[in-house]
């Protein structure tokens, strides 16, 4: 099954053109018919005349040409339809009796809304209708007008929930693509910013926008992302996660190769560095690619604070990653296989605290770490008010009581708590999760072979990481391959003046092999 998936995907990738041809075949065009009624019938038939499809047939004053408006309730801004479209049309004086002249008049003069397009294809018209445009059919012409009236109820711009900053902009992406693009524009007014739109999902037809800065982003990178997006061959796009999984280099890797973020400032900064952002309609998470290991641990906050603070926080985060991955493994290794490394006094107190614990260290550690994972998952899924209860249950009941019941040793609770806290310091949730997965591998290795096992696992992870690519770019850069020019912004966040002038840095960004 997995094999098949892997295989089929490869094939698709290699023959990118085939995917495009598929799309074209699917878009067999049906020309707009002359009669308004036929067109309405076609739309009704295709959509099975749903309740939310609103059709208004009107005849303009002193004209005999029947016209019809179609829109879907709820996803359009009805007020603007009434005021701008209908209102304007009714105010037309000297309505020509020739249908084509009427069309031209409406198209060029009468509709005050900025975005009106002529459509010939009924298939496209249906997609336009479903994405919130209002369609105007005019009897006698084989062209329809699609008026941009996207609206309806959307979420307000709020502070991003997953990436809160202490100092920094408070706005986060929302589900509406237009708003998201606007947010990026507000962050950077560079005329070279490009938004390239395509549609994805055989059925969902979601808008996907690739954002980059022309002249900074490498053409090969843009081409590669486009090529991969063109092979997109799935029925439904749920959100940016589907795109991420489709275009990433290794889907077997536990590490994310594409970063997701809710923050417009982060996206703006990334595209200014020469990266590419992918925004998908209907999700507040934008994708940033290529990603390398140091980006994973960077937070926009590093730049908003003074450089010393930024650097210290970064070092803290690197430490956090190491603790989060290694601590339970090292605990297991030291307690069960190499207690000689523990200081003499400490070993006595650990031995006495473990006296009476019925489990081996690995079982004890697994028990606690899995409990912690469950707590984290439960906490994330529950409403905030109940989430606090989970904290109390987890912290007090499970921690304290488990120790008192003699199921785990107090040191184990400390280890697990420290691991969890360290993991929370990783700025990106999906990266933090992948580190949590890796942690288990380390724990098993250490239970079998102690510190030797931990080191072997560390080597394995490193082998994997050096072979890992993000849209073709080495994931481990600037560590390996060593890119000296990027090192002023890896562990140390150099003072702004030393980050060289921004454009120069942009040039050198992972471009040197």
């Amino acid at each position, binding site marked *: 099954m997995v094999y098949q998936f892997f295989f089929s995907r490869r094939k698709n990738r290699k023959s990118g053109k085939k995917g495009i041809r598929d799309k074209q075949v699917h878009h067999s065009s049906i020309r707009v018919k002359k009669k308004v009624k036929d067109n309405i019938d076609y739309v009704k038939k295709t959509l099975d005349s749903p309740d939310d499809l609103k059709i208004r047939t009107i005849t303009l004053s002193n004209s005999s040409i029947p016209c019809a408006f179609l829109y879907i309730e709820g996803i359009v801004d009805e007020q603007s339809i009434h005021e701008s479209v209908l209102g304007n049309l009714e105010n037309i004086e000297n309505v020509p009796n020739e249908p084509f002249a009427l069309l031209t008049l409406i198209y060029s003069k009468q509709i005050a809304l900025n975005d009106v397009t002529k459509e010939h294809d009924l298939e496209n018209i249906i997609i336009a209708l479903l994405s919130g445009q209002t369609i105007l059919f005019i009897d006698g012409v084989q062209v329809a007008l699609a008026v941009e009236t996207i609206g309806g109820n959307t979420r307000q711009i709020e502070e991003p929930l997953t990436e809160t900053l202490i100092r920094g902009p408070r706005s986060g992406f929302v589900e509406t693509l237009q708003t998201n693009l606007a947010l990026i524009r507000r962050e950077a007014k560079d005329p070279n910013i490009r938004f390239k739109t395509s549609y994805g999902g055989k059925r969902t037809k979601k808008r996907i926008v690739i954002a980059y800065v022309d002249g900074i982003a490498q053409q090969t990178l843009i081409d590669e992302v486009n090529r991969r997006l063109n092979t997109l061959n799935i029925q439904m796009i749920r959100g940016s996660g589907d795109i991420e999984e489709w275009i990433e280099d290794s889907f*077997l890797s536990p590490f994310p190769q594409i970063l997701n973020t809710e923050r417009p400032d982060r996206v703006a900064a990334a595209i200014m560095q020469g990266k590419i952002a992918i925004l998908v309609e209907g999700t507040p998470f934008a994708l940033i690619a290529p990603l390398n290991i140091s980006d994973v641990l960077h937070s926009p906050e590093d730049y908003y604070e003074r450089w010393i603070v930024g650097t210290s926080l970064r070092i803290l985060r690197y430490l956090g990653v190491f603790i989060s991955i290694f601590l339970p493994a090292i605990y297991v290794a030291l307690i*069960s296989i190499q207690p000689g490394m523990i200081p003499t006094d400490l070993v*006595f107190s*650990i*031995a006495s605290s*473990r*006296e009476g614990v019925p489990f081996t260290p*690995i079982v004890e550690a697994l028990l606690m770490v899995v409990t912690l994972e469950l707590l984290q998952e439960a906490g994330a899924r529950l409403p905030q008010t109940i989430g606090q209860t989970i904290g109390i249950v987890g912290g007090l009941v499970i921690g304290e009581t488990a120790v008192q019941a*003699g199921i785990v040793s107090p040191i184990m609770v400390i280890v697990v708590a420290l691991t969890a806290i360290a993991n929370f310091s990783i700025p990106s949730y999906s990266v933090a999760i992948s580190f949590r997965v890796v942690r288990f591998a380390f724990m098993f290795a250490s*239970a079998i072979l102690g510190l030797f096992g931990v080191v072997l696992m560390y080597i394995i992870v490193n082998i994997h990481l050096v072979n890992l690519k993000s849209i073709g770019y080495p994931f481990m850069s600037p560590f390996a391959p060593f890119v000296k020019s990027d090192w002023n912004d890896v562990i140390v966040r150099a003072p702004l003046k030393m980050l060289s002038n921004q454009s120069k840095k942009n040039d050198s960004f992972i471009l040197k092999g």
Partner: protein
Amino acid sequence: MKKINLLLFIIATLLLSSCWDSVNLEERALIVGTALDLQESDEHDEPPTLSVTNQIVVPTEGGSSTANGGASAAKSFMNITSIGESIYSLDKELFAKTSKIPYYEHFLLLVISEQVAKTDNLLPKLLDTYIRDAHIRRGTKVVVAEGDAKTLLDYKSPEKQLPILLMDEMLDQNEKHAGFVKPIVLGDLEEFHLKNNSYVLPVMKLDGEIQNKAGAVFQGAKEKMVGTFNTKELQGLALMLKEAEGNIIDFSYRNETLAFEIIKLNQKTKLNTDDINKINISVQLHIDGIIKDSSSKVNYDSKEELHDVQRVINEKVTGLLKQVIDKAQKEFNADVFNIWRQLETRHYNVWEQVKDDWEQGENYFAKANFDISTDINVYSIGTSNKTN
């Protein structure tokens, strides 16, 4: 893909099979120290039988260590003695008695009884066993026990419950503050025995409490203990080895006992090897120090009096040195001052000639002449001149 499957397969087999070396910490017998005694035997021809006493840390039972301080409760111990020729024959017995697996990584101290130390050809063999063990560290300290070594391990001190830890700490503190000779560790002993050097080990004695007041002298050529230095001789030794900083020398001046603390010690040894049968060793000592208690009636402001005090200290120090040198040369014939090292590094050709007869045969060390000159400088005297 195949790779991953293979890896998964291997990990699964590894997990399903037992983890060979995984032993819960509380199931290990943490051996912190060992006392080696000689078992009395009637027949003298038999190889000496050893009585080995291991001190094991016993963690307190029950997980409720939160109730009353787990750390202090952990320091109860258990001594297990067994008799045999090899040290490791004990391990089985230990397992039988405690159902725990002996673990030597936290081995801190080896206590050798005087009798063991004085037996011919026994010590190098014993030490070798400990040095070869991959789990015992080279930093393990070694001391000699006056009398039975076992009794030291049974001592229950009011402050620390573990006698081994107590002794271990004592040795460290003594070195740092009282100016005793640096504690000797297993690694040093290996070097000493490889080169057949003489050395001095601290002597521990149980006299109401554990005391560390003497030093056991081991003669290089004989590779066994030949006698002891008392506290005064140890002071002299410390002076010779430049390790006496912080040491306090008592001296009497006008029927008062005063204490002189050595702050800075400068020692130079020069060798004259014109006549190898009478190598001349000139030892120059320059000591800066302070008088600890100023409650005496001495007026230190007066130059004459200060001179007088310095002269008395000088005599005292020279006396200490003479005493220890005399004992080392005449009684033990043991170069505990590492004079040989000077010869080796500075007079390599001479050393090549004398190295086989340094402490034996021709006894060049015993024949050598020591020339001692000391220079005492009392530079600051307590905090006040006179307190009346």
